[in-house]
């Protein structure tokens, strides 16, 4: 077998992703011109490698090429995450790379199992023979593939790498991570689910869990980038929910939300990157009142915050409207959506007020607006948010593939959706004020310690760290047990011989392992 790696813009889906990636990536490049000062050669080399990997996954005509480019992207992004080589960046990068390799292995095994069934890796052939394949094995393969993609996306409960990797990476890289890298898993998911036309109950559950967990964990964060990372988990929950519903409205909404989340989350990360660039502060308690000193950053951040909260006329509203409509009156799902939207509103209200409003701390008096390339990226992204929000229908029909009748004639500005939005906003305001009042938000008075311990149990990070520590302890134990003595070594040899003879003599070995 020689590698049948092949690349081609297969269809409208990859075309859509391609436009998104190239547009947003060029903005990251422009932003990096001003932001990155050290190790330029290494930074741009791995950035271009990451671009290569991302474009490769999108243009892959077959599953193996998809996997190969995915791994390429993983390695490049690892070196981007650890780019500023601080002490804390290595554990985060380590977690990222190991989890990504695990996800990649799941995808690889699924790909090879499909190859063994069909004799090819090509998506087009899968689509043709999908109905002839045995249902049982398809289910297994899809389950493996979905787990792999969920790890890449960073959905709950595989999200632990995400809040560690984002804050530690340079800001353009965090924007890249949240904007594009986690979208690749979603792209693979859509591609495969579309081929096998299986709706997935599992994805709905994972989506809802991610939404709620993400926003609940985001509420208490005080590190600004960590907060955004948790909010990314929650927003990817929307995408997964849309895909899990599996109607044309749901998948269309999910895809649209991929685009919108990429733009506004990138905008938010780049804004906070500008704040970090100008002030060298990442903690909420040291920030405040920057609105006057950095007006462009503050204005664009405000647009991003409104968009992520799903407030019209910004793009977040449009895609959330599609997903809400896709739930088709399922009360539980709708409640979850409204709670998440309310929580998101509260989170970003807190973030905006704490960073750009209020009193300017003394040490930040000399802060200035960031250089022109950074402002340029911010303004362009804010413009996209506004334009897509004002004209969601044309954008949807032009760019988002897989449009069905329900999508073509979708009424964005209908009364029911606006009522839902208003409800969510007021709920969000209520959460914010109660939160501040009772010290639940991690800002203001230092109350709510017990809440934070509760939340640290809620995030499954402890579990993963525990597993890692357990493995290391076991390995150390193994190392201690193995004695370095010649007598022991010789004993091993004779024991091996005796065991081998015993195994062969007994008919035990005829049982297949």
């Amino acid at each position, binding site marked *: 077998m020689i590698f049948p790696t092949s690349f081609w813009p297969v269809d409208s889906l990859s075309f859509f992703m391609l436009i998104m990636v190239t547009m947003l990536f060029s903005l990251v490049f422009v932003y990096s011109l001003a932001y990155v000062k050290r190790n330029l050669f290494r930074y741009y080399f791995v950035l271009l490698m990451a671009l290569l990997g991302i474009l490769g996954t999108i243009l892959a005509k077959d599953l193996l090429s998809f996997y190969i480019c995915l791994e390429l992207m993983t390695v490049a992004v690892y070196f981007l995450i650890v780019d500023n080589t601080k002490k804390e960046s290595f554990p985060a990068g380590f977690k990222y790379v190991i989890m990504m390799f695990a996800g990649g292995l799941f995808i*690889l095994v699924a790909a090879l199992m499909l190859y063994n069934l069909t004799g090819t890796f090509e998506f087009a052939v899968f689509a043709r023979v999908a109905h002839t394949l045995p249902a049982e094995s398809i289910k297994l393969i899809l389950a493996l593939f979905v787990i792999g993609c969920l790890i890449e996306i960073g959905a709950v409960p595989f999200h632990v790498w995400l809040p560690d990797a984002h804050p530690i990476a340079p800001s353009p890289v965090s924007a890249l991570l949240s904007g594009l890298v986690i979208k690749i898993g979603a792209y693979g998911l859509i591609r495969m689910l579309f081929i096998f036309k299986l709706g997935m109950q599992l994805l709905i559950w994972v989506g809802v869990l991610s939404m709620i967990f993400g926003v609940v964990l985001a509420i208490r964060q005080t590190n600004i980038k960590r907060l955004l990372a948790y909010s990314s988990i929650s927003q990817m929950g929307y995408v997964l929910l849309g895909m899990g519903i599996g109607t044309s409205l749901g998948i269309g909404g999910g895809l649209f939300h991929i685009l919108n989340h990429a733009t506004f989350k990138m905008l938010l990360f780049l804004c906070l990157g500008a704040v970090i660039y100008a002030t060298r502060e990442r903690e909420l308690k040291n920030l405040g009142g920057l609105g006057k000193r950095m007006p462009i950053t503050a204005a664009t951040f405000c647009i991003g915050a409104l968009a992520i909260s799903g407030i019209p006329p910004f793009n977040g509203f449009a895609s959330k409207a599609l997903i809400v409509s896709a739930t088709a009156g399922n009360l539980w799902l709708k409640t979850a959506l409204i709670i998440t939207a309310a929580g998101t509103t509260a989170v970003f209200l807190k973030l905006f007020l704490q960073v750009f409003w209020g009193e300017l701390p003394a040490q930040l008096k000399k802060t200035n607006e960031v250089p022109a390339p950074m402002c340029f990226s911010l303004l362009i992204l804010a413009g996209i948010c506004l334009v897509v929000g004002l004209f969601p229908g044309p954008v949807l029909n032009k760019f988002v593939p897989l449009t069905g009748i329900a999508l073509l004639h979708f009424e964005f500005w209908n009364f029911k959706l606006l009522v839902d939005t208003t409800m969510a906003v007021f709920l969000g305001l209520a959460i914010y004020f109660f939160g501040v009042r009772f010290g639940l938000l991690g800002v203001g008075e230092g109350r709510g310690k017990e809440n934070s311990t509760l939340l640290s149990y809620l995030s499954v990070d402890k579990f993963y760290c525990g597993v890692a520590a357990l493995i290391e302890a076991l390995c150390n134990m193994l190392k201690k047990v193995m004695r370095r003595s*010649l007598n022991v070594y010789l004993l091993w040899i004779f024991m091996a*011989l005796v065991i081998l003879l015993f195994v062969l003599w007994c008919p035990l070995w005829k049982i297949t392992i």
Partner: protein
Amino acid sequence: MINAPILIISIPLLAAFLTHLTKYTKVKRGAELVAIFAWLASAFVLSTTARSVLAGQVIKYNLGGWPAPFGISLQVDGLSFFFAVLVMLVGLLILIYSLGIYLYARRFYSLLMIALSSILGIILTRDIFNLYVFFEMLAVASYVLITYKHKPRTIIASFKYLVMTEATWVFFLLSIAILYSLTGSLNMDVIAVQIPGIYQANPQIVYVVFSLMMISFGIKCGMFPLHTWIPEAHSQAPTPVSGLLSGLILKVGLYAMLRIFYLFFGATLLTHGVGNVIIFFGIVSLIFASAMALVQIEIKRMLAYSSISQIGFILIGVGLGTQLGLQGALFHIFNHALIKTGLFFCAGIIISQTGFWKIHQMKGVWQQMPGLTITFCLLSLAAIGIPPLNGFVSKLFVIQAVLLKHNYLIIFCLFLGILLTAACYFRVIQMFFSPEEFHHKHDFRPNPVGHFEHLTVYAFAFLCLLIGIFPALVINLIQPALKVLLP
């Protein structure tokens, strides 16, 4: 060329003695020149056989003109050719690496040539007792090579190596004696023909022979309970010798296992499920060694354990015994020889530059040696099996072969092994990129590291990338070998 097999072995062997005679000439660095030229000549002779061997022919040579059942015969077929190419390539790079350092005298090159020519002998011989003799030659030469530096720790390590290998070679001798008494011949082809009959009459004796051979080849290739000499010897040997041990000597054990098991027991034991035993040993080696590699402190010891885990990977492919499994195993043998030798050389350069042996001391290597760090990263990514590097291709074949058996337990173990390997390599990589200022060991004078060392390391990384992008280069070599193993 009918005389090729004997020339391939005897030219380096002759050179081993010629290196000592260079003492009486005025040529500067004569020993090195003799060694390199002999090696190139031997490679040239091998290349003359390429066309007919790749076409599926077999080149036979009877020593002293005695026909097969009586005399010793040497033979170049697809499998031997594949391994011989590997040995030529890695051997040449090892020689070039050791050129750069003025640490090594004539004695070193002489011993190295003896070791290399005995490896070629093992690969080409068709006589089972001759195989034993070459193995002993290799053991003695490598024993002296490991302890080349004459430090107490190296002497202890190589003494352990010697005792352990000799203990198991007694087993091999015993199995040869049993086979000789049963068949009356030492020629592999003659024995292979008679084994099915013996198995019919008395399966137990075949089991005994199999177990004895498994133990004796297992110790050469570093199977789990017999691996114990590897970390000791690898970490104490001089760097070119570590490369030789990991790159070639482990592979020779695998060669003997492949050759003899598939020739002797291919029709009897292996078709009756003994492959599962090999798979079992492979899995245990994989998991155990990658777990041990994760917690090692010294970098060379970590690389040695990682070698064992890769051998486990290969053994799984060997035990599967399918076309795809063997293809993956052979490919991984080739890849691992390149990757691990390259990694040992990288580690060797870093150690000789900094004076540090331990991983946690190697901070800030990136600032000091960026090229070397990138090479190390590339090679370790290849060892983990990340595309588009060569380790990925062989990993792919093995996983696919296991999946065809629908055995999900093995898949899980492979998963675990690969992730642990990734963890242990990234532990080193992140140390290299760590921010702390690079500093030498107290009152340590770095050894001069010349262009030859760097050239070799870059060559290894380049080969890994090349094979990863064009796997057909090696697959074309593997196809004739597969035809020999699975006729």
